[in-house]
């Protein structure tokens, strides 16, 4: 009944005040500047790395860029893979402990402590890994290579310093642990309370409840949390740069003193003394790392967006 005046009036528009336009302009400019900034990152990296793809490539005894970046890319993926094997199960365990096992009062304290672990600067982790963890692991490596030397992973003589790719991976695992734990905890907390109570009421033990209600619901969340952690592990620099002494090798051996280096740590160690062609080569490896991490993070976001926490039972 009152629709007549609304229909008759033309479409209302706010008055275009200058201050309004300026403010909107500033906000839009800020938003666009992020677009521009990321574009600049890509463009400048590409421009500076072009010389590395030329024919007269000669860095550290390699004759073309692929030969140089290959072992480094292998080291990056291998170290991150080892770190993820260790970190993901432990992180899921901690997240389950906080959400379903710990007394409620204790749980928030634990959450804070885990956040604290996330706040420790990476250089401190590196210092700790090289000085404390390496010394602690040294006898274990000697034992592994003496007694389990027939397994290819532990072949050859053990490192005399304990500074091996396994030590570096343990440090990496400790560093990505808080990220995966925090995200998995969020996912587990979103499990519908009724699903949990229903399965307990049917006589399930706590583990059966977790297996049937919590884990299926959180599966996609765990996967994307792990991939985000992997993205962090791939780009982590200082821990590996401080623990490993670099060499351009491809080797799966965990306990040896000769270890593959990673892209990020190689940049950190070589850049301060690099000049000329090597600078472009290092920037080009940085570009490769940039692309790898974008792909990995994109995969995580895609998984999270494709399966937005609906869980098994709906």
């Amino acid at each position, binding site marked *: 009944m009152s629709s007549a005046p609304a229909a008759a009036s033309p479409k209302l528009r706010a008055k275009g*005040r200058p*201050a309004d336009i300026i*403010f*909107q302009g500033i*906000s*839009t*400019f*800020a*938003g*666009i500047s*992020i677009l521009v*900034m*990321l574009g*600049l*990152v890509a463009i400048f*990296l590409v421009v*500076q790395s072009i010389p590395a793809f030329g024919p007269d490539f000669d860095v550290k005894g390699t004759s073309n860029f692929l030969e140089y970046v290959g072992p480094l890319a292998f080291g990056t993926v291998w170290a991150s893979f080892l770190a993820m094997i260790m970190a993901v*199960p432990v992180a899921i*365990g*901690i997240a*389950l*402990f906080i959400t379903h*096992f710990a007394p409620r009062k204790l749980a928030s304290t*634990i959450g804070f402590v885990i956040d*604290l*672990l996330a*706040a*420790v*600067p*990476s*250089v*401190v*982790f590196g*210092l*700790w890994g090289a000085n*404390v*963890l390496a010394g*602690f692991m040294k*006898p274990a490596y000697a034992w592994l290579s003496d007694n389990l030397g027939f397994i290819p992973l532990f072949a050859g003589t053990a490192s005399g310093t304990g500074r091996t790719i396994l030590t570096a991976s343990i440090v990496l695992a400790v560093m990505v*642990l808080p990220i995966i734990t925090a995200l998995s905890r969020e996912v587990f907390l979103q499990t519908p309370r009724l699903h949990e109570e229903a399965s307990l009421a049917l006589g399930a*033990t706590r*583990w*059966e409840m977790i297996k049937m209600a919590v884990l299926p619901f959180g599966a996609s969340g765990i996967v994307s949390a792990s991939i985000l952690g992997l993205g*962090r592990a791939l*780009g982590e*620099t*200082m821990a590996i*740069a*401080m623990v490993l002494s670099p060499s351009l090798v491809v080797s799966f051996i965990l306990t040896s003193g000769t270890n593959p280096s990673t892209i990020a740590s190689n*940049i*950190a160690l070589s*850049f*301060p003394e690099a*000049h000329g062609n090597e600078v472009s080569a290092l920037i080009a490896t*940085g570009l490769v790392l*940039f692309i790898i*991490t*974008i792909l990995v*993070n994109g995969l995580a*976001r895609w998984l999270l967006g494709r399966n937005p926490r609906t869980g098994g039972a709906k």
Partner: protein
Amino acid sequence: MTTATAATGSKRNTLTAGQLSKWAPWVTLAASFALAAGLFMLVAVASSTDFSWAGVAIVGYILFLIILPVVSRIVEGGRKAMDRFMTGLVTGAFLLAFIPLLSLMWTVVSEGAARFDVQYFTESMRNVVGEGGGAIHALVGTLLVTLGATVISVPVGIFTAIYLVEYGRGWVAKGITTLVDIMTGIPSIVTGLFAFALFSLLFSDPGYRSGIGGSVALSVLMIPTVVRSTEEMLKLVPNELREASYALGVPKWLTIVKVVLPTALAGIATGVTLAIARVIGETAPLLIIAGFTASMNYNLFSERMMTLPVYVYNQYIAPGMNVSAAHERAWTGALTLILIVVVLNLIARLVAKIFAPKAGR
């Protein structure tokens, strides 16, 4: 009927029959560790090697994980045994995470305390060979570089968040959100390379180093964090507040400045503080673009500038004449860094608590 009488007759409590008592896991735990300790004691005596506490912990835990489920399987059945096994496993995972944290804190505090003195915070490394010296130049550098990064990222971050929440529609807003996501995942060393590529092209100097480059690199890491947290906070501001303001005839920009931002201020301040805490410990980008020096440099725009994380790294990697003195300086630097980060985190929590908008308004 008959079974019930039989059960009462046998004087067993039917509710707890077929269950392990409450103390059973603890007894099993103690027994497992005692067994493991005994085992290692024998090995240590027999082969005259050192007694290994780590070995006892590992073997004791494994024994516990085997013995308790086996006992439980006999008394309580398979399902309950599985439950006990997984409980042990999950608790073990949780305790495992505390080992590195405690070890790290203990080493940093005990090793860092030695040089945590006045000299460390009043002197630079200029003309210092061997013992002595300090990190004042690195502290000043860290403060300046982080200040620069904050000055760049906070306005850009907050205005981007305002755009996304208040103005942004359609594909531009969606694209910016995606790009912020991508920016969150950039490896820190890549931002250092970017800043280097940018400035060395701008000044056509292949060996370019300066503090402002470090600020630019850190701001690439900081902006997405600021955008994310500010966005979350702006979204929490109730729409009724905005509508009430519009209804009174207040222009949109004034509504944002006078109504939306003050309501979200505490949350934004917390987010910014946490973002600062995140970038203040970054090493890799500064190593590349700010470089290292032993002297004080107050000028953000020229010459190399030392920062605390790079100082720690440099003292460790290039200790010079007196290795132990350099390592002590590195550990004290690590202690200082951790203290700064913890203080920033506490400030963020306090700000969030004190200035939080009162509920039920």
